[in-house]
Each structure stands twice: as structure tokens, then as C-alpha cells.
């Protein structure tokens, strides 16, 4: 028996002007593509959960040509919302040829009925329990339409993903997930709706085993931690740092701004090989931050943003500062305020996105109730395109606003100043 596991191509943006800015800034482009073109780590877990007597072929639509006439007994696809249009195209081609297709991932979890129209079975939620059950059903010739995970998976029992299926030379960045779940209930976040709010992590021994597997294939790998917030549990993080130092890896992680309050912890991060941290600032507008999460956690930190940025970056750690425009508290004036904030605080990699109501989120439900969704195709849900009616400006103004911000914060003079700033930091700390 042979299964094809397919990760559909990721879409960076359909905005031509923005695309030009990305192309001009190689580092920004590399950073963006490390996300949009990352292979689904879920597929590597699925492969690990598959019995050894079944042959697996991993196909990354970003690099590999899909041969629809190749013989497969089953096709499995994992897709996020922006990949789902392509996922349906792939599924339809295989189904036309009589090959059974199953689809899982974030999009299938939140819109199972839509996804079911393109495949035989849909996986809802985490697949650690349901995939083995499905394989049994498939072998017995009686599969169900939906396989829904009924509990949050105990991360300490998850298998090591099949990194060996990745073509060594194609991947410079390896994604590793140590935890799932995030305590911050942001209105726009799809992840907490799928993984829940409870922070669950693998054991340190599991992570070490995984690092050994990665190290054996890519001795000089750059690790991107896929966790929504790697550094929630500081004592777990410190144990992780000790191990990471032994492997001498360089790495990137996503976290929140509270990290900046602990000087010693920041130094340990740098020593452990951390080069860059993704921090979701979301907005510098009080009105906008007010609406993002129920406990107003980010609003409470707003006044500390500049000092926090300085604390992190002065340790030689670059911040990927994530900001969203088009929030209901935003006006056209917000664009210039944001430009000034980014430039004045010399954020290493500013990442600005347009508010995107991913299906399954509280935001999507609210905008649907307010009749503000534009219902554009899923492959335009790239976080760079407007998919709803903004409150205080037109959709065109918002789209142009994104371009204007990128143009200003990535112009040559601004970037040169940021690079000089970092060069001076490195001279001071080394």
C-alpha cells in the first residue's frame, strides 16, 4: 500500500505592488517564504503514525511536481486556509482518477463540510488519535466521512515527526513544534480555536530526541519553532536552552512581549542560539488593542512597547514585529503612526498584515454577523489582501495603506539605519 502526503503550495500575496517590495528585499522575502512555503509539520507526524508496512511519499507542492497518474492507494492533504483552494484542485484531480483523498489541517478543522465536498474523509482537530483509527478503517474498506479528535492530545505521547522524508537539500529551515495551545485569546487567531487555550508541551527528552534526529540530517540546521508561543513556561524554556546550546543550533521562535521584562532570560536566549523572535504587537492604537483579546493583555503592555523592543534588540536578538492594520479602532491616520513607531524603534523585521478573518475565529463570526465579509476566494486569505469591509476606511484605502507602510519602513535609508543600529549593538556586546 502506498500513501501520498501532499502539502499544497503556499501563497505569499496576490498584490503585485507588494510582491515587488518583497522581491526587492531579499531578507524580508526569505522570512515571509519561510512561513508561507513551510511544509505542514502535521504531515510528518501523520507519516510517523502510519504503520511501517505502508509506503509513504511526501510531496511538497512548493518544490515537487505532482504526477496525478502516479499510483497511490490514498492521498492525504493538509492545508491552511490560504492553501485550501490549491488543496481542492489537487484533491479533485486525484478523485477524478479514482484515488481516495483525505484532508486535514486547520482549514478542514474549522470548515469540515466545505472540505468534505472535495474528498472522502475529513480530519477535524489533532490527528494523533484519529489517523491510526482511519488507517484501520481504510484497510477494512469502510471509512467514515469525518474523523473528529475528541480530546486535546497529550503532547508527551506524540511521536517524532518523520524528518527523514524531507529532501535534505531543499530545506534550509526546519520547523519543530514543542507545544500547542496559547493562553491569549486573540479574536483573530485561528490557532487557539484548533489547539485550545491550554498550553501543552512535549517533554524535554522528547525534544532532545527530535533535535538528535534533525542534527543527524542537518548538522547546521536553522530551527524555526512552530509553537504559537515557545516561551510561556520559563522553567521549560531554560531546560530547552541548555539542550539547544549543546546542539549549537541557531533558532527562531514566536513569543510575546512579556519576555522583555527579564534581562537575564534574554541573555540566556541569545547564548542558546536565538537570533530572532517573532512578537505580535498587533497594534499601537489603544482603541484597536482594546478589541483584540478579552483580558486586554496586549493593551496593558502597550505603554512598554518601546522599552521592551530596546531590551530585546540590545541583546543582539532581532525582533520580527508583527502589526495588524484594519482593526476596528484603526483610521487612515493609523498608517503614519505605525510607520513612525516602526522607524523610531528600529524594529529589525517589521511584518505588517491586513486583519484577516480566518474561518473558525471569533473575528470571522463577528464580521459575518455584521455582514462585513467580502467572501473572496481562500487563496486570497494571505494576510496581505482585504477580505472584509473595514470600519473607518474603504477596502481600497486599507489595501493601499499596507503598501504605503511597507514602502516607507523598507526604504533604503530606513533599512540602512536599522542595519547600522544592529551593527553597533553587536560591536558593544561582543
Amino acid at each position, binding site marked *: 500500500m502506498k500513501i501520498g502526503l501532499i502539502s499544497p503550495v503556499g501563497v505569499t500575496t496576490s498584490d503585485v505592488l507588494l510582491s515587488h517590495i518583497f522581491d526587492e528585499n531579499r531578507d524580508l522575502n526569505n522570512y515571509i517564504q519561510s512561513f508561507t512555503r513551510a511544509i505542514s509539520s502535521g504531515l510528518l507526524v501523520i507519516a510517523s503514525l502510519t504503520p511501517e508496512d505502508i509506503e509513504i511519499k511526501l510531496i511538497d507542492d512548493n518544490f515537487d511536481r505532482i504526477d496525478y497518474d502516479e499510483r497511490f492507494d490514498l492521498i492525504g492533504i493538509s492545508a491552511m486556509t490560504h492553501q485550501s483552494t490549491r488543496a481542492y484542485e489537487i484533491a479533485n484531480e486525484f478523485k477524478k482518477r479514482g484515488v481516495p483523498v483525505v484532508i486535514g489541517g486547520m482549514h478542514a478543522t474549522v470548515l469540515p463540510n466545505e472540505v468534505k465536498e472535495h474528498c472522502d474523509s475529513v480530519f477535524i482537530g489533532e490527528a494523533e488519535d484519529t489517523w491510526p483509527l482511519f488507517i484501520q478503517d481504510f484497510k477494512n474498506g469502510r471509512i467514515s466521512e469525518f474523523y473528529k479528535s475528541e480530546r486535546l492530545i497529550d503532547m508527551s505521547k506524540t511521536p517524532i515527526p518523520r524528518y527523514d522524508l524531507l529532501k535534505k537539500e531543499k530545506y534550509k*529551515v526546519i520547523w519543530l513544534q514543542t507545544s500547542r495551545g496559547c493562553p491569549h485569546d486573540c479574536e483573530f487567531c485561528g490557532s487557539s480555536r484548533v489547539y485550545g487555550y491550554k498550553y501543552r508541551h512535549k517533554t524535554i527528552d522528547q525534544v532532545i530526541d527530535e533535535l538528535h534526529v534533525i542534527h543527524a540530517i542537518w548538522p547546521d*540546521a536553522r530551527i524555526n519553532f512552530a509553537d504559537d508561543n515557545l516561551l510561556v513556561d520559563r522553567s521549560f524554556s531554560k531546560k530547552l536552552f541548555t539542550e539547544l546550546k549543546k546542539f549549537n543550533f*541557531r533558532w527562531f521562535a514566536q513569543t510575546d512581549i512579556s519576555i522583555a521584562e527579564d534581562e537575564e532570560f534574554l541573555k540566556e536566549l541569545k547564548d542558546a542560539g536565538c537570533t530572532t523572535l517573532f512578537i505580535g504587537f498587533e497594534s499601537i492604537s489603544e482603541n484597536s488593542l482594546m478589541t483584540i483579546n478579552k483580558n486586554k493583555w496586549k493593551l496593558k503592555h502597550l505603554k512598554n512597547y518601546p522599552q521592551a523592543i530596546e531590551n530585546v534588540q540590545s541583546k543582539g536578538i532581532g525582533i520580527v514585529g508583527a502589526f495588524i492594520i484594519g482593526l476596528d479602532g484603526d483610521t487612515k491616520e493609523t498608517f503614519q503612526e505605525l510607520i513612525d513607531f516602526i522607524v523610531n524603534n528600529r524594529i529589525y523585521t517589521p511584518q505588517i498584515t491586513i486583519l484577516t478573518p480566518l474561518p473558525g475565529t471569533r473575528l470571522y463570526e463577528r464580521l459575518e454577523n455584521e455582514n462585513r465579509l467580502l467572501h473572496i476566494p481562500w487563496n486570497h486569505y494571505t494576510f496581505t489582501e482585504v477580505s472584509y469591509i473595514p470600519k473607518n476606511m474603504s477596502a481600497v484605502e486599507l489595501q493601499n495603506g499596507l503598501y504605503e507602510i511597507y514602502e516607507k519602513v523598507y526604504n533604503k535609508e530606513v533599512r*540602512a539605519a536599522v*542595519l*547600522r543600529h*544592529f551593527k553597533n549593538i553587536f*560591536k558593544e556586546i561582543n
Partner: protein
Amino acid sequence: MKDNKITTVDADNLRESIIKTLAVIARINEKEINDSILIKDELGIDSIMSLEIIANIEKRYNIQINEEDTMNITTVGEFIDYVIHIINKK
């Protein structure tokens, strides 16, 4: 008259020293670095690591490197030649 230009022996030492700097900052095995290897695509050295490397070399050799000049450099060998050129210009 004393010649300030870098001699072959000095150039070899400098080459070794730059490779060591690359290896330490980028956390890469020194043995895997050679003149023809691609800095970004093969060694995976990103922009922030590049800055740390440049800052280190500027400080050690008391030179100024213009980041824009290094934009088109792709291999380790080209980078080393560029640094030698800057030191010779001093």
C-alpha cells in the same frame, strides 16, 4: 619603506580568522566552510548573522564595511577578498 599591503601569509591568516568568525557566529562546523560555499543559500547565514559577522570583523581589524557593498557578495571567498581589499585600502 614599510609596505602596509597584506602579504600572502597575512592573507592566509586573515582567511582562517574570517572563516573562524563565520563558524562561531553562525554556529557552523568550520570544516564545512570553503571559499566557494554560498553564504546565504548553503551556510544559511541570514541578515542578522551577517551583521554580527561584519561588526566582529570591523571591530577586530578597525575597518568600516558598507553593508550595501556586501549585498552582491555570494560566496565566502568573495567576502574574504572584499575584507582584504578594505584592509588594504586603509
